[in-house]
Structure formats: C-alpha cells, structure tokens
C-alpha cells in the first residue's frame, strides 16, 4: 500500500508546497504519528473568530505544546490510549478565559485511527460571547451580520451541493435509478485531488502499477483538481459500463439496481477506508487561510475562488444542457426515453455521457468539500443533503437540482440561528419530508403520477 511508505517524504512535500503557496498549511494533521490536536479560538464582540496564540498545553508524562498563530496545537502521543490534557490558564491572553473554569484538564481517548481533536471552549469577558462558533449558534444571535454570514455560507454549501446533485438527478432522469453510490463518487473526487496534490502523477502511476513507490512530488492543487475531475469521469464511465449497463441489458429491475448501488456504495467506502485509513487529512495547499472581510462578511480567498469556479461550472452546465447537441439529448432522454430513442438518439451513449459528466461534477464538488477535511466517508456524510436537494428540486431535472441545492444549503445554515449547529443537517430531513408532503414532484418537476 503506497500511503505508508512515503510519509516521511510526504511531510517534506507538504512543507515545501506550503512555503510556495504562502498558505498557512495545517501541517498539524499530516504527520503519521498519533496525537491530540485542537485549535483555540473565541469570538469577539462582533462575532469574528479570533485564534489564540501562545497558550501552553500539556499531557501528563507525555509532553506539551504552545499554540501557533492559527491557535492550533498538536501534542504527539506514543500510541492509542487514555490521556489527560491540561491547558495552562495563566498563559491565556487577558480577558480570555475558559467557558467552564472547572474543565482545565480533559480526558481524551486516542484511537489507532489518527489524531484526536479536542476542544477547550473559550470566552472573551469583554463580549461574554461564547468562544466556540458551534455553540454560539444556539444563543440566537440574530444580527444582520450573522444572518448575512450564514447566507453566504449557505450559498457556498448550495453551490457545492448543486454540482454533486446534478449528476445524481441526471442519472435518475435518464435511467430511473436512484444512485446511492453517488456519495462515493464525491469521496473519490476528494481522495483523487488529495492523492495528486500530495503524491503527484508519478506516484499515481506507481500506485496503479502496484510498484512500491517511485513517488514524485505532488502537483499543484489546481492541476490536481482538474485531474480529479478526469478521474471522476473515468470512475463514472467504468461503473456504468461494468456494473449498470450490463445489469440494464440483462433486465435487472430498477429496485434491484438501487440495492446494487447500495452494495456498491458500502463496498467502495470500505475500500477507501482500507487504503486511506480513518484519519482526517488536509490538502497540501490551501488547508487553512485567514478570512478576508467584506461588507461585514468573511470569506477566505480559497472559498471565494471555489465559489466562483462553481458558478462558472454551473453556468457552463446550464448552457451546455440547453444549447449543445449532447445536452439537449440528455434532457430529451430524461424527459421521455422512448420518444428520444425513436427520434434517433442513442440512449446508451447518452447514459454513458451522463455518468461521465455526473462523475466529473461530483469529483469537483468532492474536491471543494475536502477543504475542511479529507476523509474516507466524506460523501456519505452529505448524501442526505444531496437527496433532499434533488427531491426538493424535482428528481430527474438538472435545474431543479440546482435550485434545490441552494435552498437546502441556505436553509441548513439559517437553521443554526435557532438550533445547535451540530444538528443543522437535520434540517435537510425536515426539508425532504415537507417537500414530499407538499409537492412530491419537486419545485421544477412535472406533475405526473408518482404514486
């Protein structure tokens, strides 16, 4: 397995890329050893996140660390087990204290799967605001600033979801199949971008041929993103060609095919886990950036770029679907397969194109979702949101998926105004159920018999 053999050079590569890109790379997460990690932060009176530098933390009998300018710290431990981690309250800046002064030492269990993240919630006495962005949500801070920030986050989530959802919706439209393995196409994109970014093309070829490792240096993240989309298209094509086209040809029913997608999804997910491990990782570039402020909202350059790219891609998809021959054929097959076939469209070819296209879009979405963390089950975690988006917009319609994704993205972020952000993904289920109760064909779906 290639991932283990190269970790020492891997650190060097990451460090080099970090310098080149001028990004504040979160190198805390990339070492192979186990550790306890975390990031100390609080919100000032304006609700802006501030990272706390220079705080000492320690683990009994193991060692200590001081937080860097991102507020991050990492303490390496010998192996899995129970540890007690202490924060030195005296080193906190004046005016900053623990939300719960009793809890200056915490028990933490480190598993063999990787670094264990731990949170020391901080409060700033000047604002009384709760440090942790997550827990401040339930406080119900309804300021214009907060609502606009959440809307922005919602649009970001919605754009990424839309790219993932369009493929799912088009596959449903052209074949009638609800593809539960779409989540794995998304994860595939994340993992491929990570792989190319860290190990590079040569490493990939070595991996493919099963050689131990002539691993080269990683390629630039932008190149890695493009390569990841290509690989997404390849996986989409292969899955259709090897698994689903043969099933369609031998007359396997749609519901049996749906169960096949579930089996495929579980299989692929654990193959990813097998090769990738259960740890959280970060890309070698753009892993963490300081946010820029504009109009009272905060956005990192990375996220702004990714959003812009998403908009361009989505517009291109829209134009492609309405203006090009291939896109029209896709919509025609979605609309009425028999009619499309009898008017001379090669349905199997269109289905194949939809899988390639959907796979590439899902991979791009996965690449962007991976900014927060690269993980083997990333896709599965957002599958619920994608289902809600697709159903809300209308199963089988590409533009419906876009509308549904934006609504779901914004609704989820707004929901943190009233509920704990830990539960925000529940909003997707609520949206899904209400969509089915009120308008089961979806916003842009045609009214037809779906009972």
């Amino acid at each position, binding site marked *: *397995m290639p991932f*283990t053999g190269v970790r020492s050079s891997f650190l060097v590569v990451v460090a080099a890329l970090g310098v080149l890109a001028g990004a504040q790379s979160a190198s805390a997460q990339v070492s192979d050893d186990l550790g306890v990690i975390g990031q100390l932060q609080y919100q000032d009176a304006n609700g802006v996140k501030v990272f706390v530098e220079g705080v000492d933390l320690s683990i009994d009998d193991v060692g200590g660390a001081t937080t860097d300018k991102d507020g991050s710290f990492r303490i390496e431990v010998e192996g899995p087990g129970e540890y007690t981690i202490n924060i030195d309250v005296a080193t906190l800046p004046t005016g900053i204290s623990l939300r719960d002064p009793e809890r200056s030492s915490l028990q933490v269990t480190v598993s*063999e799967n990787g670094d264990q993240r731990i949170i020391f919630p901080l409060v700033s006495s000047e604002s009384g605001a709760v440090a942790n962005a997550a*827990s401040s949500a*339930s406080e119900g801070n309804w300021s214009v600033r907060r609502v606009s920030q959440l809307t922005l986050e919602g649009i970001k989530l919605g754009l990424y979801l839309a790219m993932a959802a369009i493929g799912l919706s088009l596959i449903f439209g052209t074949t009638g199949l*609800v593809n*539960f393995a779409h989540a794995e196409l998304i994860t595939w994109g994340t993992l491929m971008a990570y792989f190319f970014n860290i190990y590079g093309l040569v490493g990939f070829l070595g991996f493919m041929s099963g050689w131990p490792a002539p691993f080269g240096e990683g390629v630039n993240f932008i190149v890695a993103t493009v390569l990841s989309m290509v690989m997404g298209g390849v996986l989409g094509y292969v899955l259709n060609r090897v*698994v689903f086209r043969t*099933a369609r040809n031998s007359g*396997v*029913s*749609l*519901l*049996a*095919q*749906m*169960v*096949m997608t*579930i*089996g*495929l*999804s*579980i*299989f*692929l*997910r*654990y*193959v990813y*886990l*097998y090769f990738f491990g259960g740890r959280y990782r970060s890309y070698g570039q753009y892993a963490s950036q300081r946010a820029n402020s504009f109009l009272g909202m905060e956005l990192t350059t990375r996220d702004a770029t990714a959003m812009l790219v998403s908009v361009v891609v989505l517009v291109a998809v829209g134009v492609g679907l309405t203006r090009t021959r291939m896109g029209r054929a896709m919509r025609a097959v979605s609309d009425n397969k028999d009619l499309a076939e009898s008017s001379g469209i090669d349905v199997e070819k269109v289905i194949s194109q939809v899988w390639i296209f959907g796979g590439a879009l899902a991979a791009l979405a996965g690449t962007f979702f991976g900014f927060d963390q690269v993980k083997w089950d990333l896709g*599965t975690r957002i599958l*619920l949101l994608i*289902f*809600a988006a697709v*159903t809300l917009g209308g199963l089988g319609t590409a533009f419906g998926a876009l509308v549904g994704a934006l609504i779901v993205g914004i609704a989820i972020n707004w929901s943190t105004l009233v*509920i*704990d952000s*830990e*539960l925000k*993904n*529940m909003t*997707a*289920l609520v949206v*899904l*159920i209400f969509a*089915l*109760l009120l308008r*089961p064909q979806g916003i842009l779906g045609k009214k037809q018999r*779906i*009972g």
Partner: protein
Amino acid sequence: MDWGFIIERTFSAMIGPEVMIYALAAVGLNVHFGYTGLMNFGQVGFMAAGAYGVGVTVFWLNWSFWIGLVFVFVYAAVLALLLGIPTLRLRADYLGLVTIAASETIRLLARSRVMKPVTGGVEGIDKFAEPFYNLSPFELGKFYSFGPFKYLGRDVWVLMVGWTLLILVTLMVQQLMRSPWGRTLRAIREDEDAARALGKNAYFFKMQSLMLGGMIGALAGLIQVIQKSSVQADTFNPVITFTIWTILIIGGPGRVWSPIIGSSIYWSLIVFVENTLRQLPAGARDTLRDTVELSDFNIGMLRFMLVGGGLLLLARFRPQGIFGSREEMALDRR
C-alpha cells in the same frame, strides 16, 4: 493454525447473539419488503427507537426498566407514522430516501450535545439492564458449554430469551401472513392498483405493515442493547440496515424462516473468514501483510466489503435470494 478454535467460534456464531438480533430485525424487514414490497432502508432507525425506548426511560425519566418496554413499541409506532405519512402514497423509492435519511438523523440527534441529558450523548447509556439480568437463572460470569457451543452465563440468558422471542415472533408473522390481512398485504405487493380496485385501502395496509415490521425491528434493537448492556448512538449506523438487507436476501425475501437462515449463514461466514485470516500461519500471514497490508484493523473492514460486494452480487444475479423462490418474492419483482 488452530482449526479447532476456528470451528468452535464458527459453531458458536451460528446461534450466537448477533444471529438472533439480526434475524429478528430481518423478520421486521421481511414484513416490510418481503410481504408488502416496502423499500425500507432505515431499519436501523427502528432498532434505535427500541434501544432508546428503554434507555431514555431509565436514564432520563428514571422510571423502571419494565415501563421502558412499553416505550420500545410506542417509539417504533410513532416513527413508522412519521415516515409513512409523507411517503406511502408515493413511488417505492421515496420511502427508501426518507427512511435512510431518518435513520441517520436519529443517530445524529441521539449523539448530539443538546440531547445529552436525554440520550447520554456520545457516551450513551449504561447500567439500565440490571432488572433483566437479575432474573437470570444462570450465573452471569460463568461459562456454560452445550456440545460444540460455549457461552458466558449472561449470554446464555440473553440467548434463551432472545431465541424464544424470535421463534414466537416468526410464528406470529407466519400466522398473520396466512390470515386475510396478510393476504391483502401480499396482494398489494403484487399489484397495488388491483388491490385498490377491490376496495382495499392500500395506504392503510402499508402503514400497518410499516408499523408492525418497525416494532419487530425495535424489539431487535432492545435485545441488542440489553446484550451489550449499553446504548451507543454510533452502533445504529446505516451499514447495519444493509447488513440486514443482505441477510434477508441471502435467505430469500417473503419466506417465513429466511431471516433466521440468512442470519445464521451470514454470521458464520463472517466469523469463519475473520478468524481464519487472523489465524493464518505466520509465513502466509506475513506475505499477505506485505502485499495487501492485512492488519486486524483491515480484517474488521473486510466484513463491510463482503457485505457491500455480496449485496451487489446478490441483487444482480440472485434477487430472489439463495433459498428464495421467484414465485414468492424477488427483489426485482416490483
């Protein structure tokens, strides 16, 4: 390589607690899918409802374990209503979407900080099952052997109660499916429009089926947490649902004894494969370790690859299951 040990483990697994729990959950799924044709992809949600039925009652309300048993069924029935009302009038795949989403949401809700006072959050709930174990006629910590089987006393007690319930529930389902009510369910499965044309309220019958199967699933969840003596949100993971699907399809959907047969085959296969890999002679093991990085961690993962790959291949090539018949019910009938 200790074949005796592997065979002993495999035999014990054939009637072990997992077999019984998953078979019970599969009986519920069989009512849903095998007899009514409902695509329930959230059976683990019903199991969680059963587990928290007793867990929450003891942990949060501080009521007796025995009152909790009532809530097991109340929660399952309420969950069935919530899932069924929006979806049972729609095409079959919509129920699938909503049930898988709901089961995952239940897990997220149960493990959340907000619900910690009620569900115990990530740490979960323990020390709630004493009233059950106090009734045990076996010494809890002692090993008991019966022929090739060997279990701890507490497991013998759980197994005795569990298997009795499993057989009773299976017989009940058998009788129900022979009744006019069960024949109506099967008529709906075969042709919903025809059943409706004959004046049967298909929506109403499907709802009853969803509730009944859900309650059986909840019972499985209850026995699982009693056996583990702890309620942990993360054990109710969607992969469990699809393990149950795999078991049901192995046995053949729409047949009374298929959940038990499927579960027994599934678990003995898993235990056999895992133990054989762990027990490989040193040389073979090292070779395997070098070529495919086979560690204990990876062996655990192999189970899920087998479930996924098995489900894929069964759905593709034998939708009626290994022992099922196409005349009764197959995955690709609807």
